[in-house]
């Protein structure tokens, strides 16, 4: 008895020592992880004249939020946030609707072509976008789009064009995740609905979709940050500077002839803030969205 309690005590002490080391390690790593962002913040708080004269690695003579104010006004960030929302909100919603429809149909009807379709969607999602950019650009100039949807009659240089390419590229991932999710739902639900005489669309709308809410919420959060963070498509497919999303607005601050890095640092932080907020607020959905995709398989 004494022996065991002694052994237990030492092992507990060893565990405690282990815990201390573990926490020390994790805290060090956390500091390293957070540092680049903190440094960016420090730079953003300093006036350009201060850093030109003393260098970036110097004790600050002045710290203020002026660069944030200048960045906000010079880059017109408020306006570009709105641009991003105009693209991201419909893109996320339509992506989720289309993806859930496909996922439903593919899980509902068992067929040899299912696997092929699923592969086609997912592979499209995984392809490096550079593989298709040049032809895509010409498609965007060639395909006519009626007036209310497009102010110049094309997909090019239009919000709808950007929304569309986001949908096309993201729908594969969402189909994959949702079809995995739907497969975990009890099959009897489907059958019961059908026996009740519900149409296939009603089964989708009233039976399956409500059950998918957790997966949809997770995917929605994830897709929002994906689309929010993109700047590649807008750079390519939007000509009008004032239609570009927030991430490319950063480029507007990088002049060929003059760049103020301190303002740029402030603007970069402001660009990052919405996704950080979304992440903190909807953490659970977020991580779930990421993990649903790759672990259910």
């Amino acid at each position: 008895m004494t022996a065991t309690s002694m052994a237990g005590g030492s092992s507990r002490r060893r565990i405690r020592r282990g815990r201390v080391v573990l926490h020390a390690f994790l805290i060090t790593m956390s500091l390293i992880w957070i540092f680049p962002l903190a440094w960016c913040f420090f730079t953003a708080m300093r006036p350009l004249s201060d850093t030109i004269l003393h260098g970036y690695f110097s004790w600050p003579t002045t710290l203020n939020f002026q660069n944030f104010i200048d960045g906000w006004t010079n880059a017109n960030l408020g306006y570009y946030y709105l641009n991003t929302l105009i693209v991201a909100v419909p893109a996320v919603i339509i992506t989720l609707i289309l993806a859930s429809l496909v996922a439903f149909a593919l899980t509902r009807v068992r067929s040899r072509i299912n696997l092929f379709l699923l592969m086609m969607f997912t592979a499209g999602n995984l392809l490096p976008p550079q593989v298709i950019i040049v032809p895509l650009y010409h498609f965007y100039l060639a395909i006519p789009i009626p007036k209310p949807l497009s102010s110049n009659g094309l997909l090019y240089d239009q919000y709808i064009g950007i929304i569309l390419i986001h949908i096309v590229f993201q729908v594969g991932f969402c189909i994959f995740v949702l079809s995995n999710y739907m497969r975990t739902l009890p099959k009897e639900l489907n059958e019961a609905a059908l026996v009740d005489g519900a149409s296939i669309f009603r089964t989708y709308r009233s039976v399956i979709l409500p059950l998918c809410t957790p997966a949809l919420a997770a995917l929605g959060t994830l897709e929002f940050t994906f689309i929010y963070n993109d700047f590649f498509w807008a750079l390519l497919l939007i000509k009008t500077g004032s239609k570009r999303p927030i991430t490319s607005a950063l480029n507007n601050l990088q002049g060929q002839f003059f760049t103020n890095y301190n303002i740029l640092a402030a603007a970069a932080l402001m660009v990052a803030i919405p996704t950080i907020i979304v992440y903190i607020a909807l953490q659970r959905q977020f991580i779930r969205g990421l993990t649903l995709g790759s672990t259910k398989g």
Partner: protein
Amino acid sequence: MPDPQAIGLAPASVSTGAGAIASGPRKRKHRYSILTRRDKVVLFLMVGIPTALTIIFIWLPTLASILLSFTNYQGIGGITAANIVGLKNYQFLATGYVLFWPAVAHNLMWLLFFVFIASPIGIFFAVLLDREIRGSRFYQNIFYFPVVLSLAVVGFIWELQYAPDGFIDSALGLTSQNNAIDWLGNPSLNIWAVLVAASWRHVGYIMVLYLAGLKSVDPTLREAAAIDGASEFQSFVRVIFPVMAPINIVIVVVTVIESLRAFDLAFIINQGTNGLELLSTLITNNSISEASLIGFGSSIAVVLLVISLVPIVLYLSRVMGSASE
């Protein structure tokens, strides 16, 4: 045997479905016969619209890229017979273009760095944070937050660290002309600097994926290993890691695909030049820049396509294989 009636009535994807069902067990046939014709049309539209979009906006352009790679088209006017150059673009890529093999090498370095350094660190963090320790959630958040940042922002944040007057050199006291380390300018160093920045983001991503996998591991396995007297390291290597085989494969493939898609950071830092050439930046710089060498750029795109299809097919066959049953 496809049901001729179904083919007549319903469009392809659904009719094949019906065919498969017809040859299936009786019970199934009975179940699907409940579908009305209207249901079949609805099902077709459900699948058909997104399929059409994907074909038009992803697979047709892919095909067009392949065709363009046999031309010297520069994007102005129509393509004539005079534009067709056969395999000349590929030949110049392999033998004449100084930046092609470095770009391939950089993509490969990106891949190896992610597979052997960044992903294992992510896995290591996941294993550490999987235990019940105080603040596990907090640490997870810290390691994960770079993943939610736009790469435009990540690139800029790291430029502030690596610049000759930035944090790293200044902190190391390397500010004089002769000993300053030019992290982003030195063409043999900058790829590593960028890989560190990219890993800053990749580690958190892998950590979350792996954590989710670890949560699903049966806890009795770990207990059994502990009772057998295995150290934590041993129990991870011998018990947990093998059980996690499916997710390990997912992580390898995700890492490979991410490496091939690498673009944003290099492009933001110096447009993918001077040591940061990647296949993706070569495509962009040659074909959608002022240079407008569309034919030549497309041949690089085809190379990237072919390389990418290898992990994509592996991934799909693995994941879909397990998903379909």
